[in-house]
Every structure is written in structure tokens, then in C-alpha cells.
């Protein structure tokens, strides 16, 4: 830290420089102002290293959650063995996947295992399941098994796990579930599966996404209104802490919020508003903060091409969350204060373009550099053909992995932790980002918190407006996207890429998934004990009306009896009502 005198001398020198060097140059090129900036110590006047940065692995975690991640510990060994890590590394959940019926997905998982995959299932559910409908609902037409696997019942769930037995049983491998509105039902199925297999539920690991608030803001697969949705969240939180203590409770994220058009500041503020609401739910349920906050994870925040800003974002996010946990919620355990997320900075899928798709690889490398420089795996994401809507080809996955490897082993991006710490520029940018996000978060808290800011439409509308703002800036060439609104035309080459599509998902399966699922539903209804189903649903309905009752035990009984996902969700629809769409 510079002394006051030093700062004054520097400030004076800066004024002199502006007069002697900068302004003449601006004038020479007939500009209104300089297109670049230069930062001096005066930009970070009050910078206190220990207060603002500290050390990786210690409060306030600005520099990172630890001095090095586990992947870095084994990176050289992995390179020598030619390990092909799926996200998260071995022993964790495998590649995000899911399609067709449970049988189709199970067979796919077995195929992946025969090719060397060792992770647990990282399950994508179809939209029908995500919205709490069965495959025979009128809403299901055209959607069954499309963006994920169709799960209508506990039976389907069990079929998926036929791929995980023996040394891959559910006490050995974790499961990820990208499920939100009916997360409680899927968690119930997971617990019921353990019971059926004679495995202690306390052994179950993994992460349900279980982040309903962002659905109202950005992703759209909600069922019930916000308040009863928070009741269900509380039920999962309390139940998991007691019975499935190794299961992460939620995977919160600004990722979808940013992808829906939010600005960087909105991403951070809205994510934390949601996170605060979830934390408060635990506190209100009588739990000790350090008892459950360590089991909160973050899915990812959003990203953009602005590399410096995304690095600052991650630093600000870590510091802000740590402060919220310690000062607002009184956490004492370091693990409560850390943001646990599989990836850090990235460019976001909305930064990729359909035009000249190979450019997306260059773009994703920028994201990898950013993430390597802010405490994460230098992950290059997404694969270049992401926007084509055809799935990721084998080439794009290979190039993505190689780019990540190049950043780790050749560029050695991650060998220095938080390399920007102390930079006048980066510290001031981090402070600015944090201050702006805090102001927005305060605004939401003044409204009554995330639920209030959803009910009054504030957060969803803010995101829609930001999305529109961005579109206008692109159409007016205030923002540039290469190949989209600039550098097009006759002198440019529309470079295309040869793709060999990854035939992992059988198109024939997807085409017949709906009819096969309908047949299975009919069979289930014939074979199950109707009375047990009705009794279970009746008990669920009665308890749902009493806010104090935890519905997880009832949900477990319902799924075991063979009640379908929609039957269960419809009972809750009857009691809670359905969420209203947000007006623009």
C-alpha cells in the first residue's frame, strides 16, 4: 500500500501525463476520449491486502477456495496416463446426459461404462418430468424423452439405476439431478431406492439442482407459486440434513439467469438473493447455519467474453458470499462460506455464434484463460458446435478437452493462484463489481427478498429488459459480435467445420420414446395397488395443507406405492395452486 504522499505524487504525475501524452494523442486521432484506460495505484487507494484478498483457502476467499484443487494435484499423473476426465473427475458424476425412456438411458449409461466412464449418473430429465407431468399428459406431446430422460414413476427411476450396481452402486457413486420444481419427488425416489437396495440413505451422495427461484426468473420450469415452492425447498433441506447428510442440498446458479439476458451485476445480485432466501429457509426451520450451509453448492454463474470482468466477478462473488455467511448469518465454519462450484469463469453459451462456428473455440479459450486465472480449472466451455442445436460432435469435444489441456500443461495458466491479486485495475474492478451487486441485492432485500422480487415481477422483468438492451446494442453496433454484426460480407470466408455427430443418442429411440412410455404407464397402472396409491396421495394432500409438516416421508411413500410423478404433483397443484406467468 502506498502512503498518502506517494499517492498524491502519483496522482499529480498522472495529471501531467494526461496533459502531455494522453490528450494530445486523443486529439490527434480526433476522438472524444481515449478508447483505452490505464490504471495506477490511485485506483486502489484503500486497498488492504489482508482484508480484500487474504490467502487462498481462507476468509474472505477472494483468491480461491484452496491453494490448489484436487485435479491440479493429479494433473501430471493424469497427463502421463492419458486420462480422459469427465467433468468433475473420476468418482464424481459423469457427463451430463439423458434421453428417451429409462431403458434407453440405462443402456446408454452401460455403453458409456464399457467405454471407460466411471462416474455416477448426471441426469438430464425431459421437460415433461421437469414440469411435473406424465408422458401421457397433453402437455407432453412432442417432448417425451427429448431434452432428457422421461421419468414418470419410481419404476422408471429404478430402471436407470440398473446401470449402477456392485462396485458402482449408489453408495459408491454420486448422482446429479438437474431437477427443480419436482426435486422433492426425485430425492424421495433416490431415498426409496437406497431403502430398496438395503443401502443406508446416509451413504447417498450427489447434487440435486433444487434451485426453484431461478426458474421463475430465467428457466421457466416451475410448477407452484414461489411461496409453496420454498416450503418444498425447506422440506428437502431439513430432510436431507437429517437423513441424507452427504447429499448436497441445492445447486444455485446465476448461470441460467445470465443466459436469459441478465447483466453481470444482476447475475450476482439475483443469485445471492436466491441463495439468501434458501439460507434463511434453513435458519427459519431451526437449523444451525454451519450445519447446512456447507451442503449448498453453486451450479455456475453466468459468463461473457469480457475476460477481465469475469475474473473480477468471480473474486467479488467469493468475497461477497463469504461476507454474507459470516456477517449476516453468523457462520463460523469455513466450508459454510465457500462457493463450491464445478467451474468458475466462462464465456456463457450465449456468447457463441451460429455463424463461423469454429470461432467459438477461440471464444471458449478466452473463458478457459479467465477461469484458470480466477481459481478454477481452466475449463474451455462450451464445445464449438453448441449453438448448432445438433449435440456436440466428437471433434468439438476433442478440441474442447485439448484446449483445456493446453491451458493447463502448456500455458500453465493455473500455476499461479489469483495472479491478478494486487493489480490496481483488478482490485478496483472487483470492488466496483461487488459494490454494484450489493446495491442491487440491498434493493431486493428492501422489497422483501427474492420471493417478493419474483412475485412483483421485478427480477424476471429486469432480466427481460437487459436481454432486450443487449439485442439493441448488437443491432446498433454498439456491441460487436464477429461474424454476426461485423466482419461479414464478400471478403470474409464463412468457415464451416466437418462434424462427425456423436451418435450417443439413438434417434430411433427418441422417435418412439413417447409411445413406449405410454405403454409402460398403462402397465404400471394395471399392476400397482390402487388403494395404496390413493391412500398415499390422500395423506400427502392432508399434510400439504399444513405448512409445518415435512412432506418428504409422504413423498417417499407415494413413490414407493407406484403413484406417478404427475399424480403426486397434481395433488400439490390442488393445494398450492400453479405459478402465474410473469407479464412482460
Amino acid at each position, binding site marked *: 500500500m502506498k502512503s498518502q504522499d506517494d499517492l498524491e505524487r502519483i496522482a499529480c504525475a498522472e495529471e501531467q501525463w494526461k496533459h502531455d501524452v494522453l490528450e494530445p494523442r486523443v486529439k490527434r486521432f480526433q476522438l472524444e476520449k481515449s478508447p483505452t484506460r490505464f490504471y495506477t495505484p490511485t485506483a486502489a487507494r484503500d486497498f488492504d491486502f489482508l482484508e480484500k484478498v487474504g490467502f487462498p483457502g481462507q476468509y474472505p476467499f477472494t483468491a480461491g477456495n484452496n491453494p490448489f484443487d484436487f485435479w491440479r494435484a493429479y494433473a501430471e499423473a493424469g497427463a502421463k496416463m492419458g486420462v480422459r476426465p469427465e467433468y468433475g473427475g473420476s468418482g464424481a458424476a459423469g457427463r451430463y446426459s439423458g434421453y428417451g425412456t429409462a431403458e434407453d438411458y440405462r443402456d446408454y449409461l452401460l455403453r458409456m461404462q464399457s467405454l471407460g466412464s466411471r462416474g455416477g449418473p448426471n441426469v438430464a430429465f425431459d421437460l415433461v418430468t421437469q414440469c411435473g407431468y406424465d408422458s401421457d399428459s397433453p402437455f407432453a406431446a412432442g417432448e417425451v424423452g*427429448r431434452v432428457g430422460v422421461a421419468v414418470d414413476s419410481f419404476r422408471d427411476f429404478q430402471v436407470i439405476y440398473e446401470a449402477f450396481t456392485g462396485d458402482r452402486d449408489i453408495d459408491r457413486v454420486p448422482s446429479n439431478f438437474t431437477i427443480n420444481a419436482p426435486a422433492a419427488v426425485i430425492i424421495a425416489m433416490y431415498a426409496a431406492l437406497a431403502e430398496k437396495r438395503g443401502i443406508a440413505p446416509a451413504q447417498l451422495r450427489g447434487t440435486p439442482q433444487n434451485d426453484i427461484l431461478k426458474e421463475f426468473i430465467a428457466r421457466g420450469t416451475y410448477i407452484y407459486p414461489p411461496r409453496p415452492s420454498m416450503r418444498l425447498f425447506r422440506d428437502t433441506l431439513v430432510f436431507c440434513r437429517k437423513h441424507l447428510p452427504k447429499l448436497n442440498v441445492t445447486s444455485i446458479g446465476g448461470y441460467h439467469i445470465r443466459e436469459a439476458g441478465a447483466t453481470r451485476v444482476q447475475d450476482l445480485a439475483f443469485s445471492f438473493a436466491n441463495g439468501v432466501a434458501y439460507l434463511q429457509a434453513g435458519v427459519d426451520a431451526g437449523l444451525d447455519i454451519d450445519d447446512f450451509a456447507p451442503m449448498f453448492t453453486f451450479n455456475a454463474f453466468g459468463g461473457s467474453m469480457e475476460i477481465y470482468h469475469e475474473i473480477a466477478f468471480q473474486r467479488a462473488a467469493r468475497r461477497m458470499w463469504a461476507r454474507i455467511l459470516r456477517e449476516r448469518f453468523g457462520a463460523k465454519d469455513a466450508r459454510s462460506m465457500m462457493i463450491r462450484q464445478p467451474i468458475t469463469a466462462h464465456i456463457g453459451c450465449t456468447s457463441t455464434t451460429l455463424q463461423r462456428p469454429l470461432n467459438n473455440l477461440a471464444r471458449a479459450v478466452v473463458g478457459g484463460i479467465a477461469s484458470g486465472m480466477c481459481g478454477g480449472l481452466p475449463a474451455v466451455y462450451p464445445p464449438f458446435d453448441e449453438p448448432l442445436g445438433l449435440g456436440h460432435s466428437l471433434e468439438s469435444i476433442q478440441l474442447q478437452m485439448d484446449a483445456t489441456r493446453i491451458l493447463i500443461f502448456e500455458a500453465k495458466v493455473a500455476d499461479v493462484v489469483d495472479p491478478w491479486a494486487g493489480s490496481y485495475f483488478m482490485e478496483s474492478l472487483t470492488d466496483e463489481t461487488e459494490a454494484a451487486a450489493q446495491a442491487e441485492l440491498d434493493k431486493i432485500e428492501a422489497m422483501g427478498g427474492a420471493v417478493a422480487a419474483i412475485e412483483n415481477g421485478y427480477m424476471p422483468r429486469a432480466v427481460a429488459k437487459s436481454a*432486450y438492451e443487449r439485442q439493441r446494442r448488437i443491432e446498433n453496433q454498439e456491441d460487436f459480435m464477429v461474424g454476426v454484426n461485423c466482419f461479414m460480407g464478400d471478403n470474409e470466408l464463412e468457415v464451416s467445420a466437418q462434424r462427425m455427430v456423436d451418435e450417443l443418442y439413438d434417434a430411433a429411440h427418441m422417435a418412439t420414446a413417447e409411445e413406449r412410455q405410454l405403454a409402460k404407464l398403462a402397465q404400471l397402472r394395471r399392476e400397482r395397488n390402487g388403494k395404496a396409491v390413493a391412500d398415499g396421495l390422500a395423506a400427502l394432500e392432508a399434510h400439504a395443507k399444513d405448512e409445518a409438516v415435512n412432506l418428504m416421508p409422504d413423498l417417499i411413500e407415494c413413490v414407493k406405492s407406484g403413484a406417478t410423478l404427475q399424480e403426486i404433483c397434481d395433488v400439490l397443484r390442488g393445494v398450492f395452486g400453479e405459478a402465474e406467468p410473469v407479464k412482460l
Partner: protein
Amino acid sequence: MNSERKIRVLVAKPGLDGHDRGARVVAYGLRDAGFEVIYTGLRQTPEQIATAAVQEDVDVIGLSVLSGAHLALTRKVIEQLRQQGAADIPILVGGLIPESDKPALKEMGVAGVFTAGTPISSIAAFIRSHVASM
């Protein structure tokens, strides 16, 4: 054409796909282009879309789908429009539409497919010229 005549557009998301960034941006953009935009939001059934198109007497229907179900859903919407005697209302489709599916959509009778990166001004111009020629 009467100077008061406004072009009316229906913007709808059929199916369960909840990613409405594109639909919202197009809705705002077409409003700013001077159109009256009937925005019906998420989870529209084909019947709701066709009924709205008829009741609102829209000049064009815009469908946005990012779940990959665009062929099935567009087909169903067209069928409903036919049933309601409104098969003449042109349909535009946007979202995550692979290049290879565009011919199939055109063959169904879709008037235009607008995917990522299309300026809203192009969509507005397309609609205006389509309406003028009717």
C-alpha cells in the same frame, strides 16, 4: 391501407420449453418496430395458440422453440389452425432450429425460419412485406 392500421403479431412458446429470452426480445423489438404484439408466454398448447391467433386477428404467428420439439409442435399448431379455419395465417419459427430441419418446416408451410443472430429489423421487414403482399 388505412394509416391507423396496425400489424398484429402473436408471439408464443408452444410446449414446455421455458427459455423465453428470444421470444421476449422479439416481442419488445416488434413493439418498438410499431407492431401490436400479443405475447402469450410459456406453455401454450396448440389449441391456445390457434384460438389466440383467431381471436386477436393476427397478421402473423411467431413460434419460439428451443427444446428440439419444433417439428412436432409446429405440425400440431398448423393442424389446430386448420381446424379453426385459420390455416391462412402465416407462421414464423425461431429458436434452436438445426439447418437440416428448415426444409421440413418450409414444407409444412412455415413462412420463415429465424434463428440466432437474426436482427429484429429483418424479422420486422419480413413481416411488413408479407402483410403488404396479402
